[in-house]
């Protein structure tokens, strides 16, 4: 019985931790598979010490290909999260959001959070990538690390 209680507490803690990673964000629906079925998404979730060299503690990415209607739903989620943030970069192409870099409000513990979105039309479908980052790294740090154009 004690083991079951312990198992429940551990599972609950892990679920809570996972849910809180995108706490209060509209894209949480996306990461939870409520917009695009999880079976249709390529997911990559990394957290912990392996992200230390990047000054990050959470990396979550989703890659999926969806039709126009679903893509529109995803666009709305991204735009809702971008709304009200001070630092954001949104790029549209023919009326569709194709690129977004949103500096989300930091966590209570002062960790920076970023939402990245990139999409490209492939025929009638949209190839889309959504990334959520959290850590002490600033947008400048990330740009230095990953922007090969600057090097």
């Amino acid at each position, binding site marked *: 019985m004690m083991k079951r209680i312990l198992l429940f507490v551990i599972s609950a803690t892990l679920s809570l931790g996972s849910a809180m990673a995108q706490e209060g964000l509209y894209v949480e629906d996306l990461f939870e598979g409520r917009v695009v079925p999880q079976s249709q998404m390529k997911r990559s979730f990394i957290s912990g010490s392996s992200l230390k060299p990047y000054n990050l503690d959470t990396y979550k990415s989703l890659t999926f290909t969806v039709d126009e209607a679903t893509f529109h739903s995803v666009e709305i989620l991204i735009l809702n999260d971008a709304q009200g943030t001070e630092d954001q970069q949104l*790029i549209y192409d023919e009326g569709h959001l194709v690129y977004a870099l949103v500096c989300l409000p930091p966590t209570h513990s002062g960790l920076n959070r970023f939402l990245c979105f990139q999409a490209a039309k492939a025929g009638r479908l949209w190839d889309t990538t959504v990334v959520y980052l959290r850590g002490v790294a600033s947008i400048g740090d990330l740009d230095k690390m990953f922007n090969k154009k600057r090097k």
Partner: protein
Amino acid sequence: MRDKTYYKQLCDSWMDASIPKAEERRLKAFLAATDDPVFDDIKAVAGYFECGKAIHGHVHKRPFMWYVPASAAAVLAIALAVGTIGTSKARKSELASMESTLTAFFSSGVDVEASLSELIDR
């Protein structure tokens, strides 16, 4: 009385570990008695083993009960090593994928540098 060639053959058989017990005893008796320098080498080797036996006595065999936990520990160690290597490879692959995704994002063909600089300068 057997000749020198016979004992040389016994020496070869002894070195090959193919000598019967009776002949081994005969060879040992011969080596203990002979002063022929031809057999000095084999006497040195035989003496080394006899000396070892005298010092260590019988060979200590590990009790059977130790084999089970020792084998289990060995299997566990191998499993952990394989698991760690597998996890490490998977993690490296995940990190490489992350770097690729973020590099594609931050180095995107879309001209975002100007606006990004604006964000960075704030």
